[in-house]
C-alpha cells in the first residue's frame, strides 16, 4: 500500500554537532511546509557545541498531527559515530541513506532496510575547494538527493535559498549547484521517487512556522516589556535573544537612535530576577527567562515578589532535571517548584502555552496579569515548544488594545485620597492599590519589604495583622482564578465516562491519541489546562468523569499532584500518563499507557490500533 505513505512519514537526520547541518535540515522542513503539507521538525541535540551526535526529526503528517512519532521511515546518516544505532532505529521496510565514499560496514546491513549510498565526501572534494564549503555543502547535496527521492518541488527549494541569501547571488548559485549534484546522482543511480513521498496539498493555510521562544520574545515586545534581565541558560536563552532582535528593529527611536528598552545580562539568575522585581516595582514592565536551575535560584526572590506584591514575569523554558539533568532535552517537570515557589505559604500563578501563538499571546497577557494581580506570573513552556519550530496559527494583535496596568494611583488620585493604604483591600477582591516611586511629593510613598506589615505598609509583628494579610492574599488568589486563561474544553457536554487532562506540549500527541482512539470507538472528553490556579471548570470536569487521565512529561505526575492538592478530588480516579525520557511524548505512548488502565473490554479495541 504505497499510497498510505504519501505525506505521512518520519525522516531523521543524523549529523555531527557544529557542521552546519541545522540550516540544511531546516531548508528541507520548510520546503515541505511551503508545499502545503503539515510538518513538525524537532532538533535532538547534545549539550555540546561541536563534535557530538545530533539528530533532526521531521514528521510529515497529512492529518496534521504535530507531535513526535516513534519509528524512522528514512534515515539520513552522515555521522559514522552514531551509525550503528541509527541503522537500528529505522523501521522495517524503511530507508537508510549514508555517505558511501567509504564502504559500509557489512555488520550494519539489515535485510529489511533499503540502503541508498551517496558519495557525499567524494562529490564535495571534487566540486568544492574551500574546506568549510566542503563540509557545508555535503548537507545541501543530501537535501538535493532527498528532493529527488521524495518529490520536493525544486522551485520551492530555489525560492527558499533566494530568500535566505538575499543579495548574495553567488551563494545561492553554489547552493543550487550542490542541490543539483544530489539530484543528478539519484537520477542516474536509483529509482525515484520512493514509496514514501510528498504531494503538494493546501493543508497549511495561513499558518506560520516558528519556535516558541521567538514567539515569547515577540510577545514581550508587543506586551510592552521595557526592562529585560537575564542569565544565559539552555533552553531559555533564545527568548531574550529574540526579544533583542525584534526590539532592535521595532523599538529604536527614529530621531535619537536610542532604545526604548533596556536589556541587562545579569551575573546570575538571582540578580536577573532581582532586576525584574526592581524594574516592575518602579513601574516598568519587565521580565526574565530561565530554566529549572535558574528557577531554583530565583525561589527566594519569588517569595518576596509574592509577599510584597510586585508584578513579575518569568518565562520558564523547562528542561530535563533534576540538577543539570539532561539540559538539552525536554520535560514538564518544574510544575510543583513553580506553583509553590519560595518558603512560607506561597502560591504562584502559572500559565501553560501549547503553541507558538499562545507563547506570543500569553507573554503579552502575562505582563497584563502581573500588573493586574501584582504578583509573579510564571509561564511554563518547555524545550520542545521553545527551541523547535512549530506550525502555528499566525499572531494577531488588536490595535485598540490598551495595556492593563492594574491598580496604580496617580498624583491627582493621591491628592484626593484621605489616606493611602498600600495593602488596604478597598475593592474587596484582595487586590490593593499601589503607587510608583516619584509620583507625589508628600503622598503615596511606602516602604516595600518582605517582612510583615499592616494595611498601611507599617511594620508589624502582630500575628492577627499578619494572618489578616495572608488571608487577603488568598482572597486575591481566588480572584485570580477567573482572570487567568481559562481551560480549553474539547466538547460542549460530556460524552464519555473518561476524561483526559493535558497541557503544554503534551497537547499535540494527546489530541492525536484522542482522535486515533475515537476512530476505533473509544471516546474521551478532554480538557487542556492553560493556567494555575484552577477555576471551577477544572473541578467540575474531574467530578463528572469516572476516570481522569492526566497526561504529562515528568516522573512524578506533578500536575496530577497539584490537581489533587488544590481541588477536592479523589486521587484514586486520577490516572497518571507519564513520559520522562527527555523526548517529547508520543501518541503511541499515551495510547499504550491509557490502554493498560482501561477495562478489559475496551482494552481489546485499543490494542488493535496499537499493534
Amino acid at each position, binding site marked *: 500500500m504505497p499510497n498510505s505513505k504519501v505525506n505521512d512519514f518520519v525522516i531523521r537526520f543524523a549529523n555531527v554537532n557544529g557542521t552546519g547541518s541545522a540550516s540544511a535540515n531546516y531548508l528541507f522542513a520548510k520546503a515541505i511546509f511551503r508545499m502545503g503539507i503539515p510538518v513538525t521538525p524537532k532538533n535532538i541535540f547534545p549539550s555540546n557545541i561541536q563534535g557530538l551526535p545530533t539528530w533532526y526529526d521531521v514528521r510529515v503528517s497529512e492529518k496534521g498531527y504535530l507531535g513526535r512519532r516513534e519509528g524512522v521511515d528514512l534515515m539520513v546518516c552522515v555521522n559514522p559515530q552514531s551509525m550503528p544505532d541509527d541503522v537500528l532505529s529505522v523501521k522495517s521496510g524503511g530507508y537508510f541513506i549514508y555517505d558511501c565514499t567509504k564502504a559500509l560496514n557489512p555488520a550494519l546491513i539489515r535485510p529489511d532496510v533499503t540502503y541508498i549510498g551517496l558519495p557525499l565526501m567524494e562529490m564535495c572534494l571534487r566540486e568544492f575547494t574551500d574546506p568549510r564549503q566542503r563540509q557545508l555543502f555535503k548537507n545541501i547535496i543530501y537535501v538535493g538527493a532527498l528532493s529527488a527521492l521524495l518529490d520536493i518541488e525544486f522551485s520551492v527549494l530555489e525560492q527558499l535559498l533566494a530568500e535566505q541569501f538575499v543579495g548574495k547571488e553567488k551563494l545561492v548559485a553554489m547552493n543550487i549547484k550542490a542541490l543539483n549534484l544530489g539530484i543528478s546522482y539519484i537520477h542516474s543511480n536509483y529509482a525515484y521517487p520512493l514509496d514514501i513521498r510528498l504531494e503538494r496539498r493546501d493543508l497549511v493555510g495561513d499558518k506560520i512556522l516558528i519556535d516558541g521562544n521567538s514567539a515569547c520574545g515577540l510577545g514581550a515586545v508587543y506586551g510592552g516589556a521595557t526592562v529585560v534581565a537575564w542569565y544565559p541558560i539552555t533552553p531559555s536563552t533564545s527568548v531574550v535573544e529574540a526579544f533583542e532582535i525584534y526590539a532592535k528593529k521595532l523599538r529604536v527611536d527614529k530621531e535619537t537612535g536610542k532604545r526604548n528598552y533596556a536589556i541587562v545580562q545579569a551575573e546570575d539568575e538571582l540578580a536577573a530576577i532581582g532586576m525584574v522585581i526592581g524594574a516592575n516595582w518602579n513601574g516598568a514592565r*519587565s521580565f526574565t527567562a530561565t530554566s529549572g536551575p535558574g528557577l531554583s535560584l530565583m525561589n527566594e526572590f519569588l517569595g518576596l515578589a509574592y509577599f510584597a506584591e510586585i508584578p513579575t514575569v518569568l518565562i520558564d523554558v523547562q528542561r530535563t532535571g533534576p540538577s543539570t539533568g539532561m539540559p538539552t532535552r525536554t520535560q514538564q517537570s518544574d510544575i510543583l517548584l513553580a506553583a509553590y515557589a519560595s518558603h512560607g505559604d506561597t502560591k504562584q500563578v502559572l500559565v501553560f502555552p501549547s503553541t507558538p501563538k499562545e507563547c506570543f499571546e500569553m507573554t503579552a497577557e502575562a505582563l497584563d496579569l502581573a500588573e493586574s494581580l501584582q504578583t509573579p506570573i510564571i509561564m511554563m513552556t518547555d524545550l520542545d515548544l521553545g527551541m523547535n519550530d512549530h506550525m502555528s496559527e499566525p499572531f494577531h494583535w488588536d490595535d485598540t488594545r490598551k495595556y492593563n496596568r492594574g491598580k496604580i494611583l496617580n498624583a491627582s488620585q493621591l491628592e484626593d485620597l484621605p489616606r493611602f493604604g498600600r495593602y488596604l483591600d478597598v475593592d474587596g477582591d484582595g487586590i490593593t492599590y499601589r503607587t510608583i516611586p516619584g509620583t507625589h511629593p508628600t503622598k503615596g510613598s511606602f516602604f516595600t519589604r518582605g517582612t510583615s506589615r499592616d494595611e498601611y505598609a507599617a511594620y508589624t509583628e502582630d500575628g492577627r495583622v499578619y494572618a489578616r494579610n495572608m488571608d487577603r492574599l488568598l482572597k486575591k488568589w481566588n480572584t485570580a482564578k477567573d482572570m487567568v486563561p481559562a481551560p480549553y474544553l474539547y466538547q460542549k457536554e460530556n460524552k464519555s465516562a473518561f476524561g483526559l487532562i493535558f497541557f503544554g506540549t503534551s497537547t499535540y500527541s494527546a489530541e492525536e491519541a484522542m482522535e486515533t482512539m475515537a476512530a476505533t470507538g473509544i471516546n474521551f472528553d478532554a480538557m487542556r489546562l492553560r493556567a494555575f490556579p484552577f477555576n471551577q471548570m477544572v473541578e467540575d470536569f474531574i467530578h463528572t468523569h469516572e476516570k481522569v487521565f492526566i497526561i504529562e512529561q515528568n516522573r512524578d505526575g506533578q500536575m496530577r499532584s497539584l490537581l489533587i492538592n488544590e481541588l477536592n478530588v479523589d486521587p484514586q480516579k486520577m490516572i497518571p500518563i507519564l513520559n520522562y525520557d527527555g523526548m517529547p511524548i508520543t501518541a503511541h505512548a499515551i495510547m499504550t499507557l491509557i490502554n493498560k488502565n482501561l477495562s478489559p473490554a475496551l482494552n481489546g479495541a485499543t490494542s488493535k490500533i496499537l499493534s
Partner: protein
Amino acid sequence: MTYIRPKFRHPDLPKNDLGYTTREYEGSLSTLCAGCGHDSISGSILQACFELSIPPHRIAKLSGIGCSSKTPNYFLGNSHGFNSVHGRMPSVATGANMANRDLIYMGVSGDGDTASIGMGQFVHVIRRNLNMVYIVMNNGCYGLTKGQDSATADAGSKSKAGSVNPFQPIDLAGLALELGASFVAQSFSGDKEQLVPLIKAAVSHPGFAFINVISPCVTFNNNPGSTKSYDYVREHIEATGKTDLVPEKSEILASYESGTGTEVMLHDGTFIKLEKLAANRDPFNRMEAMNALRNARNRNEILTGLLYIETETEDLHHTINSTDRPLNTLEEADLCPGAAVLAEINDDLR
C-alpha cells in the same frame, strides 16, 4: 513597646530652596540600639538630601537585609523604599534604575549584606557603573544575629565574647577601586562634618558612588580589642582632607591654603571642593588612591574622605544606549509595533 516621636518642631527651623525643613526628610523612629552608628549615618543622609534641596519623592531608597538595611525606614519618609532580600539590593537597584533613570537611587547595605552574601552583586553593580549611591554601614559584625564576625572584621580584632578573628578582612573601598568604581569614599559615622558633604558629592556624581562608612556596633563590637569600636576608629582615623559640595553658580571661596586644595567640576556644573588635601593626595589618580589606602592600612590607620573620583564617567544607560525618557513613562504608542507590522512578521514566517 511604642515609639512616639513628638510632632512639635521649632517654627524657625531652617528651610531649603524648596521651602522644606529637615522634617520633610525624616522617617520613622529608629528601632536600632541607642548609640548605633547607623542612626548617625541616617542623619547624615537626611541632612545631605535636605541641603541639596532634593524633592524627597525623587529619591528611591533601597536596601538588603540586616541592621543597616532597616535604616531606609528611618530617613526620607516621603521617599519610596525597598527593603529587599539579603545581599540582593544591587540587582533591585539596577532594575529600578533601568525603569526610571530620573530618580536618585540611594542604596544602603551592611558589611554582611555586601561583603559576604551580596559580594557577587556588589562587584557587578560596580562593573556596570550604575548611577546610584551605595553606602555600606560597616561595623565588622552581624548585629541582628548577635555579633558574629563579618568578612570586613580585621584579622586579630577581638569580639565582645573575647574570640579573635583569624581571617583577613575584605577591604570594600580597596575592592571598589580595583573594580573601577568611578567614585570611592570612606568615612566614619561619627564624623558628620565629613560624611554629609561626601554624601552630597556622591548624590551629584553621575555614576556609581561608593561610600564605605565605619559605623560601630555599640552592642556587639564596641569592646576593647575591636578595630571597629568608637574608640579605636577615633584613634586611627586619617582624613584625606575636607570635602564640600558647592552648588551650581555659587562663588567658590578659596578658604583653604593655596596649593593644598582642589575643585572637581561635576556634570551638572556643581563643584566638589576638596580642602586641605593631605600631602601627595590626588583624587583623580586611581593607582595613587589604592596605594594611599593600602599604606594607611599598613599603618593601622583608616583613611577617610574622598579617595577617588572620575568626573567624565558614563553610566549603564549610556552604555546600553537606552532612551533619555524614563522607560516607565513609555506607553503603547512608544512600545507596541502594532498589527500591520505583525502581519509582515507573520508573512516572513510562512
